[in-house]
């Protein structure tokens, strides 16, 4: 793999700070007693300093060395965000190995693919649940030898060879150091900027996962450039709650934290994230649209439960804030009345609400990965939370464009950060190159060739640069297609519009080569469930609730709303949703219907739900289905259901704007 981009100043890294282990060592010297990482354990936030971060990583590294770790060895890292797992990442890098984080909710089969493909010899995992999966994997992937775990709970009866706790490994490390006093420093010294720092397997929407290889140079340069553009400081606080296997967490919780020297906070468990968010009140926060959505849904559900006068006050001020924000983003004047009322709203509603959500100290927050609903975006910005859109990819070490402070818009993803160049191909695809451009996919030159052309990355997204240089993304390039009569059809654009409704969790639009557009929908169990409770509609399960006539009525209104807004669009008014159904089950990554990052796998769904799709294009008003479901332990079962189909009226086109 030749180095891809060269030349810009940002790429010049001095040899004392060109890998993450070296930077961690530097941090331990520079601000040894400053908090680097916190973890909520047994109800209490426990803090570890940079000196401890370095020391722990060092001992894990020495422990690994005592087990015969060799440069270039791959190490699977599996678990929730835990300090020891981050230290393990640094430890592996210190020995010239490559960490390969894997999504902790992967089923054994998926894990096996990655462990096998990456040729991992070691695995560092969180707990018994992951140990069980890895031992299953090891039975078939002979290359995997050592499984090391953080949490010893339930592990007492395990007697497998090659199994040890990280505390035991730490002790091995101490012993190893006695006989090899300079080993660690020597190994760290051998690391260079162009070593592979991490392999992130992307759960692509098509085919098997691909392992994007990122070098220390890629990550350090990108993390530094983005931190400079955004003015990150040492006193930032981050909540590390997104999967470690996702490149975003690796950038925010590892790369940037080390490069800038700020503190990260590991929540107690996946269920406590919102409570932990409130306790930590981060200054720098990243959330994909679904997180912002679920926070908003949570707020709205609670508001609806409040007494009438309170509810009225909250609604009034929230509308005010959104209206002001909409005007501000649209560069429209704000009336004197609004200016005067806003401080009152801050005092009564916005301030307390932000405080309660843990967003009161946020200096900058991002949303990325998918389009965010304008209502959601305006809601948080209206409260005074500086949420901005960001465009990035694993293959670019995340950052491509960011909306700058004071230049935030609803429908673009901002301008390129330092060192990034953007070009639009003749077919309308977004291409870019930057110091963060990856080193190729592991053991997959074919896929690398398809993505990387002369140093430029083909993003696979259709989009354009507007007059002010802001990037605007329309849809996945390969998904943009045409209806039978030749009308342009951008499914994700429609799906996002549908998903902007709090009641719709997932949407899949169909229309390529068809006479009209139809949709398969998932309702949001929390929002619709609470809506149903308020109306005394009893239900037993998702499948039951989804097929209630009242729920169909509710969703029907939401689809009509989308159609009305589409009717205003000059290009897309002919792609209104004409028929829809609510799926009897939630789309689930375990069933391979969506990726772990919740992107719809269109091809797979078209195949799996072919009978449903045929029914949508027949005149029928209901259809029988039988579906295969995969449980968390990998077993499968079938469920049968009768799914209703609804027609939706066409809204007359308004002749554009």
């Amino acid at each position, binding site marked *: 793999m030749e180095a891809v981009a060269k030349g810009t100043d940002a790429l010049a890294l001095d040899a004392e700070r060109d890998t993450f282990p070296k930077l961690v060592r530097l941090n331990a010297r520079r601000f040894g007693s400053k908090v680097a990482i916190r973890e909520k354990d047994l109800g209490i936030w426990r803090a570890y300093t940079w000196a401890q971060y370095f020391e722990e990583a060092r001992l894990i590294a020495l422990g690994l060395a005592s087990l015969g770790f060799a440069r270039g060895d791959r190490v699977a890292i599996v678990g929730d965000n835990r300090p020891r797992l981050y230290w393990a990442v640094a430890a592996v890098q210190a020995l010239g190995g490559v960490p390969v984080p894997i999504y902790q909710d992967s089923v054994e089969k998926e894990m096996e693919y990655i462990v096998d493909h990456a040729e991992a010899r070691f695995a560092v995992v969180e707990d018994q649940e992951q140990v069980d999966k890895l031992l299953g994997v090891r039975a078939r992937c002979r290359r995997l030898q050592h499984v090391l775990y953080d949490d010893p709970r339930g592990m*007492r009866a395990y007697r497998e060879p090659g199994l040890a706790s990280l505390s035991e490994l730490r002790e091995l490390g101490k012993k190893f150091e006695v006989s090899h006093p300079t080993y660690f420093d020597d190994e760290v010294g051998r690391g260079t900027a162009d070593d592979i720092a991490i392999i992130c397997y992307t759960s692509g929407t098509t085919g098997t996962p691909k392992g994007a290889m990122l070098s220390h140079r890629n990550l350090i340069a990108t993390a530094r450039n983005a931190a400079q553009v955004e003015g990150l400081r040492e006193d930032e606080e981050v909540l590390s709650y997104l999967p470690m296997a996702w490149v975003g967490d690796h950038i925010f919780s590892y790369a940037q934290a080390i490069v800038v020297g700020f503190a990260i906070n590991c929540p107690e468990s996946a269920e406590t994230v919102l409570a932990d968010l409130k306790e930590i009140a981060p200054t720098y926060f990243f959330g994909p649209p679904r997180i912002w959505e679920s926070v908003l849904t949570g707020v709205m559900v609670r508001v609806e439960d409040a007494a009438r006068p309170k509810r009225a006050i909250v609604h009034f001020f929230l509308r005010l804030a959104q209206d002001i924000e909409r005007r501000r983003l649209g560069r429209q004047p704000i009336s004197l009345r609004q200016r005067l009322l806003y401080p009152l709203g801050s005092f009564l509603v916005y301030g307390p609400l932000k405080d309660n959500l843990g967003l009161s100290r946020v200096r900058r927050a991002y949303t990325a990965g998918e389009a965010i609903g304008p209502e959601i975006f305006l809601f948080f910005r209206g409260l005074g939370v500086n949420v901005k859109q960001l465009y990035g990819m694993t293959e670019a070490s995340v950052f491509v464009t960011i909306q700058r402070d004071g230049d935030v818009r609803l429908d673009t993803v901002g301008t390129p950060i330092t060192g990034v160049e953007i070009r639009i191909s003749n077919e309308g695809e977004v291409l870019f190159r930057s110091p963060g451009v990856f080193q190729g996919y592991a053991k997959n030159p074919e896929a690398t060739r398809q993505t990387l052309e002369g140093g430029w990355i083909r993003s696979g997204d259709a989009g354009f640069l507007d007059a002010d240089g802001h990037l605007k993304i329309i849809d996945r390039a390969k998904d943009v297609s045409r209806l039978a009569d030749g009308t342009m059809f951008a499914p994700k654009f429609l799906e996002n519009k549908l998903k902007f409704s709090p009641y719709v969790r997932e949407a899949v639009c169909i229309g390529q080569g068809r006479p009209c557009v139809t949709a398969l929908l998932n309702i949001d169990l929390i929002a619709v469930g609470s809506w149903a409770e308020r109306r005394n509609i009893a239900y037993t399960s998702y499948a039951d609730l989804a097929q209630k006539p009242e729920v169909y009525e509710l969703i029907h209104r939401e689809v009509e709303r989308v159609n009305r807004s589409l009717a205003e669009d000059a290009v897309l008014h002919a792609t209104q949703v004409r028929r829809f159904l609510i799926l009897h089950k939630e789309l689930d990554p375990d069933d391979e219907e969506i990726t772990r990052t919740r992107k719809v796998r269109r091809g797979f769904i078209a195949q799996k739900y072919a009978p449903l799709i045929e029914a949508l294009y027949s005149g029928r008003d209901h259809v029988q289905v039988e579906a295969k479901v995969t449980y968390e332990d990998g077993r499968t079962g079938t469920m049968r259901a009768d799914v209703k189909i609804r027609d939706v009226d066409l809204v007359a086109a308004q002749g554009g704007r």
Partner: protein
Amino acid sequence: MSRAEAGGPLLEVEGVSVRFGALIALNRVSLGVAREEVVAIIGPNGAGKTTLLNAISGFYHPYEGRIAFAGRDRTHLRPPDVAALGIARTFQNVALFRGMSVLDNIMTGRLLKMRGSFLLEALYWGPARRQELEHRAAVERIIDFLEIQGIRKTPAGRLPYGLQKRVELARALAAEPTLLLLDEPMAGMNVEEKEDMCRFILDVNQEFGTTIVLIEHDMGVVMDISDRVVVLDYGRKIADAPPAEIRSDRAVLDAYLGVAHES
């Protein structure tokens, strides 16, 4: 804690009978439970399973027979004294303080371990403060163990049934019992909740070495987690053997009307 003479069985029930007026609920039942064993009690409705548990926990007093715990006769102790000996239980119907938070509910499980003067407690000073912190730490370990961090501050009454059962288990564990009595810990749960509960019960057994006696109807669960199964029918013990043998025991099959056939 009463970790008296090791070696002998932890719990000995010898020829115990319990009657309510003319009704003989337990008829000369004998049963021994070894340390760190998991024993399941099964039997049709009205077989006397809960009565047996109640007799062990001191809620009912047998009119004949003898119950010994850790080698000491304690046939006629009252429930608080039994609890002080290191026996904790959960109930068939959830019995939590509905308005209190999960944390406070579990803290009540430690009441027997708290001592100190009212004045010091009120001032939250010195030993009282130290004691409170110690108990809180113990409770937090249990919260972590049973994975209920997310509901620590939720009022117990607002939780779904499966979680209430788990909180009840947590409260029983807070007393750091030597013997844990579970009355239908999985009743009314869905498959996933049952699997979780099974895992927790086994973990408790392995991690803390707690001896467990449980009543359960789900044969799959019983066969999975117990070392030994005791079968009651009309107040009498009709079988007492490892799960594999129970499965093929004629008398059990007859009494149980084929429930065991399915598993």
